């Protein structure tokens, strides 16, 4: 079992003709993902990596029965691409693009509340159900199939923790990178709820970081709604207040909210052990199983 994507997911790649879009389409197909179409305005009729390209997502849905998209569209056009995905009756849109203006994302989020599509990202590595499908840029070879769910705000931290898990023989149901921006489509709570409902997921890892209050909300959700054990990690304990640490969302405000400490405390209070190192997180997961 898995959450959000599996071998039946039929993927259209928005921005398939670009450098990243075409390269990762090849990688996704090689991994076994069912990529059925590409969509790029003005490029309909081409073929990339053996996949037919359409001018619009709607055509890809009509002609190839696509039900999910992964988006490699440059920042200036990315919000429009996400709107198109939301407007094409897809079940899922995964936005990899980094650097979408925040006010664009506020409008996207408003639209999200009016449709049934799930958005993952933006500024994320994507989502992978090992052995079935990957939508995004995650390196497939480090993942293995198993019973641990993983949700993370950071791409490379996801790889690090998965590496620690896999080396201990702890495979994954699904790993979701939700992205490090201030406004994103799928939150920790959304992903945790999906893992809780997935009978194959027997433990969950949640990797958070400084900035915002999503981890605190996740802690409250775990406390009230989850039976599945969760292990946590929070990056940015040493980050000084007021400085942006790479991610647009990773900035500690002056007033004590959004700090690593407040997040770790909230998680500990919800019964979630928070590792000092990624290796300790893997140890916690092993102890759950």
């Amino acid at each position: 079992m898995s959450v959000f994507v599996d071998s039946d997911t039929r993927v259209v790649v928005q921005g398939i003709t670009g450098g990243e879009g075409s390269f990762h389409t090849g990688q996704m197909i090689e991994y076994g993902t069912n990529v059925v179409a590409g969509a790029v305005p003005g490029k309909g009729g081409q073929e990339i990596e053996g996949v037919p390209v359409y001018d619009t997502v709607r055509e890809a849905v009509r002609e190839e029965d696509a039900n999910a998209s992964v988006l490699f569209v440059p920042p200036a056009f990315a919000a429009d691409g996400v709107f198109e995905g939301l407007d094409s009756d897809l079940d899922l849109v995964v936005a990899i693009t980094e650097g979408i203006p925040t006010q664009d994302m506020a409008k996207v989020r408003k639209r999200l509340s009016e449709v049934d599509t799930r958005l993952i990202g933006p500024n994320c590595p994507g989502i992978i159900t090992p052995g079935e499908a990957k939508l995004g840029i995650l390196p497939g070879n480090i993942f293995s199939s198993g019973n641990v769910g993983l949700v993370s705000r950071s791409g490379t931290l996801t790889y690090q923790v998965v590496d620690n898990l896999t080396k201990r023989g702890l495979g994954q149901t699904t790993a979701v990178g939700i992205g490090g921006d201030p406004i994103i489509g799928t939150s920790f709570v959304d992903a945790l709820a999906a893992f809780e409902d997935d009978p194959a997921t027997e433990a969950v890892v949640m990797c958070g970081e400084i900035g915002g209050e999503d981890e605190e909300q996740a802690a409250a959700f775990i406390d009230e709604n989850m039976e599945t054990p969760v292990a946590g990690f929070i990056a940015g304990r040493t980050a000084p207040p007021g400085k942006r640490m790479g991610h647009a969302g990773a900035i500690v405000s002056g007033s004590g909210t959004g700090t690593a400490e407040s997040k770790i405390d909230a998680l500990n209070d919800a019964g979630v052990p928070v590792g000092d190192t990624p290796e300790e997180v893997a140890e916690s997961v092993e102890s759950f199983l």
Partner: protein
Amino acid sequence: MRLHEYQAKGIFAEAGMPTPDSQLAETTDEVLSAAESIGYPVAIKAQVHVGGRGKAGGIELVDDEAEAREAADAILGMDLKGYHVDRVLVEAAVDFTDELYVGVTMDRGEGKPVAMVSEKGGVDIEAVAEETPEAIAREHVDPAFGLHPYQARRAVAEAGIESEIRRDVVGVLTTLYDLYESRDASDAEINPLMVTAENEVVAADAVLNVDEDALFRQPELAEMEEGSYVDDLERKAGEYGFDYVRLEGNVGIIGNGAGLVMTTLDLVDYYGGEPANFLDVGGGAKAERITNALDMVFSDENVESVVFNIFGGITRGDEVAKGINEALEGFDEIPKPVVVRLAGTNAEEGMEILNTDLVQVEETLEAAVERAVENAREVSA
């Protein structure tokens, strides 16, 4: 990206916001002639990207030429919380009876902009927000529709603003929201919005922080970007295009991806060392970028040991190794010990070409960090 007060005020004034008469000056003579043409009393205000300028001695109110000369000499060239002051704004002093606060920012939790008004302006508004949040009236804005006029009126009424000036404050808030939206701001603020004895309102300060991700469609603002660096290292990081934050410690850290680099910093701390910096080379970094990153960290004289932590997804281990080789082969003697940990995409290829005579190699993140901390300890001993 932060605009200076004088830049933000220029934009505000152009939009019809009431602002005091002001001029930019770079020398004491320019300050005096500006003050002369504006008319005393004037405020002399350091133009640096620092909060709490007034408390730090960066703002002086002066009544005559002698005081102006003294203040200009003191402020021009001063070091304000690490920033060098090379320009001041000379501005007509406002005779005020009240100080208000007006602001617009993004509420990331709600995913909506929020417009704010308070009659407790002029002081530390962060403290007001924390201690008496009810003193700030808030209106969340639907980003698809913008700030409705009734919302602006409601916020101003809720904030308890006196009725004589409500219409003017509503006008200021509406203009501020329009600027926030049209200029892709992350924050737009006036603190204080001064109220004069004649019941006029004047923007005595102006904050406009712009979303860097939106600069591609704000060419005019992109051109206004001016050094907001504490030191040469941060300036260099800007030129190289790195996400870089300088810290106090002695272990230099280079990695890819914000979350993983932050984790590496945390581990340095965990193993008893002190991180010297956050440096994210970003996704897909090629050899030259890696060379630049090493150059950056070596130029920090506090750095006594360096750790490279790369987990390749989109970034390739062989490119990283090439860059490390290129950077280090130029030295007769490696300036500081370098520990490398390579994992992920093409890590094996990278390990094969990495010149291991010049660096120490560790397989796991934990071991690499521990070794770098140990190296720093040995160098300082």
